[in-house]
């Protein structure tokens, strides 16, 4: 008996039943429920600001956040689809394009309303780092949950899956952070709320390679 046959024998001996991967829609719904729960809990902990009620009534605020929500959901679906071996690549590519286009449109819309002076002035207001900290804090637990769900699925494209997962989580983190921040200045939003989404999302490439290896 050669080594391969010995290996087959040891693998098949006392094999334990496993639960097959749940459908994508089930996993996405479960994750979104967890995100809603964690975000609600965080709102109570971090403090809900009364001023934001005025912003919620503006069309810009509502439209922007609905679009970010759509981008976040698309990215999470793409992350879960790409976490299974032999996934359909075109599905994840389409979802990634939709989400990235939404994000670029939001960035462009905001950048039309800023001047270089206001941008530089805003970049020097270090108080904005608190908003980035909110984005990160609101993303940590959802990111851990999503990475754990994905890890079970044995991804064969670690960097891409990691990127999509972190991009999805930070997108929703940025969305939640808007409810905690009363500032609506486009420079502030671009520098402290939206830019971190892209930067942290790219970190997902490394995190994916590191954490999703199986």
């Amino acid at each position: 008996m050669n080594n391969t046959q010995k290996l087959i024998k040891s693998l098949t001996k006392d094999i334990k039943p496993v639960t097959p991967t749940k459908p994508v829609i089930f996993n996405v719904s479960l994750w979104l429920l967890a995100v809603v729960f964690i975000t609600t809990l965080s709102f109570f902990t971090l403090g809900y600001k009364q001023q934001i009620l005025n912003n919620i009534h503006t069309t810009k605020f509502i439209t922007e956040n609905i679009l970010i929500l759509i981008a976040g959901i698309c990215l999470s679906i793409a992350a879960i689809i790409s976490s299974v071996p032999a996934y359909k690549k075109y599905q994840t590519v389409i979802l990634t394009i939709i989400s990235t286009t939404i994000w670029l449109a939001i960035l462009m819309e905001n950048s039309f309303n800023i001047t270089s002076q206001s941008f530089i002035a805003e970049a020097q207001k270090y108080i904005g780092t608190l908003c980035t900290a909110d984005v990160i804090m609101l993303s940590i637990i959802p990111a851990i949950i999503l990475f754990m769900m994905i890890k079970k699925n044995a991804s064969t494209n670690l960097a891409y899956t990691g990127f999509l997962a972190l991009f999805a989580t930070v997108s929703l983190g940025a969305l939640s952070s808007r409810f905690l921040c009363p500032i609506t200045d486009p420079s502030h939003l671009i520098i402290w709320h939206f830019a971190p989404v892209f930067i942290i999302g790219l970190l997902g490439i490394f995190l994916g390679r590191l954490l999703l290896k199986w």
Partner: protein
Amino acid sequence: MNKNNQEQKWQKLMVSSQNGDSKAYAQLLKEILPLIKNFVKKRVFDASLVDDVTQNALLGIHTARASYNPAQPFTPWLYAIVRYKILDYIRAQQRYSDNISLNDDDFETFCSSATNIQEETDIKKDLATAMKKLPAKQQLIINLIKIQGFTASEVALKLNMSLSAVKVSAFRGYKTLKDINKGGNT
């Protein structure tokens, strides 16, 4: 048997394997083995590595068996895992040939520095000598984990040992290597 029938048969065997049927699982692995070997042979040109890569792929299939969706065809899933495991194996080999580092405190070589070439050769020789002093089982475990890039749980499956036994054996091996190296340096 045509391809469709074979595909359906493997799908059924895989579903039974997911439910814990060891006979179905053994039959499935035996039937797909030639397929995996041929796939590996076409991509790994070093014939001496084909068996190792094939075993690595089998371990991958075992680890990822929960990720198979019974509603989807089996063969693309199988090939996706084998392809991933081939790349994984090649990357691990590449890492090993680029930089050996068993213990960061004691062994550190940088392949790009020309001044380190002599030192690197010496360390490789010392390491090879030290490895020979270890018991055969420890040598094998360290080789599988550090050189071939298997995880401890994969080694446990491969050698039919418990995970903790593999970890303990590897740890003892590293400690012995460290002691040998210290003894050699003093």
